[in-house]
């Protein structure tokens, strides 16, 4: 029998290379604080060598919409909805103490003063680190958001099967 001696650390690194831990995050919320938590986990996991998939649905889609670009759905209901539901990574409101924008602006100032990255910066870091971004097609349709109005670098437009197929290999699956 042939036995080959392998350095444990090398073996571990190789194992991670071939079968890394997988993390999936469903981002349903469009609140700044929740999306921030999701992105911190995503970037942290990617920095630890894990494969990360973020699945954006419902209000979470606002985080991956371009700013000041509106879709023009055909029916008036969804058009009206589009006027009320503005998107853009830097426009997300706090889940508490938003105070019509004042609270959120103050929070952003505190973050900036403390050199904490905001949602747009975290989003860019996540994309740099290879975090896979998926937008849910059903809720895109429901909310009248056209795919042209999403930011660049969205890897897939997909549905629940795609999410589950990723999540079943995941060791960390979170719903935010």
């Amino acid at each position, binding site marked *: 029998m042939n036995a080959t001696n392998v350095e444990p650390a090398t073996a571990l690194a190789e194992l991670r290379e071939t079968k890394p831990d997988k993390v999936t995050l469903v981002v349903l919320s469009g609140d700044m604080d929740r999306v921030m938590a999701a992105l911190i986990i995503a970037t942290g996991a990617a*920095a630890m060598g894990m494969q990360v998939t973020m699945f954006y649905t419902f209000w979470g889609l606002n985080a991956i919409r371009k700013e000041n670009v509106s879709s023009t759905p055909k029916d008036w209901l969804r058009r009206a909805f589009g006027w009320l539901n503005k998107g853009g990574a830097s426009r997300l409101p706090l889940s508490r103490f938003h105070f019509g924008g004042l609270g959120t602006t103050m929070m952003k100032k505190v973050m900036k003063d403390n050199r904490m990255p905001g949602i747009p910066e975290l989003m860019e870091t996540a994309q740099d*680190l290879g975090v896979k971004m998926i937008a849910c097609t059903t809720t895109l349709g429901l909310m009248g958001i056209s795919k042209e109005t999403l930011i660049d670098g969205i890897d897939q437009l997909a549905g629940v099967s795609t999410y589950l197929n990723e999540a079943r290999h995941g060791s960390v699956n979170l719903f935010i």
Partner: protein
Amino acid sequence: MQADVKLDTLGYFCPMPIILTSKKIKELLPGQVLEVISDDEGIKKDMPAWCETTGHHMVGMEEENGADKKIYKAYVKKV
């Protein structure tokens, strides 16, 4: 402790020190030691955890008293 490469993350909060470390470590050769300087207390637990997951070797951690808060120096050996 002696390090080959230094990484200054002073003023940055979680997750930036870890993200900057994961980028910087790619520039090192296996066996070289990276010194990560941080004033985020979380690094005391986060750096060993990052090493455990990525397989790099945590050589040691030093604490110093800075101007208004503690400064941590984490030493990571690239595997």
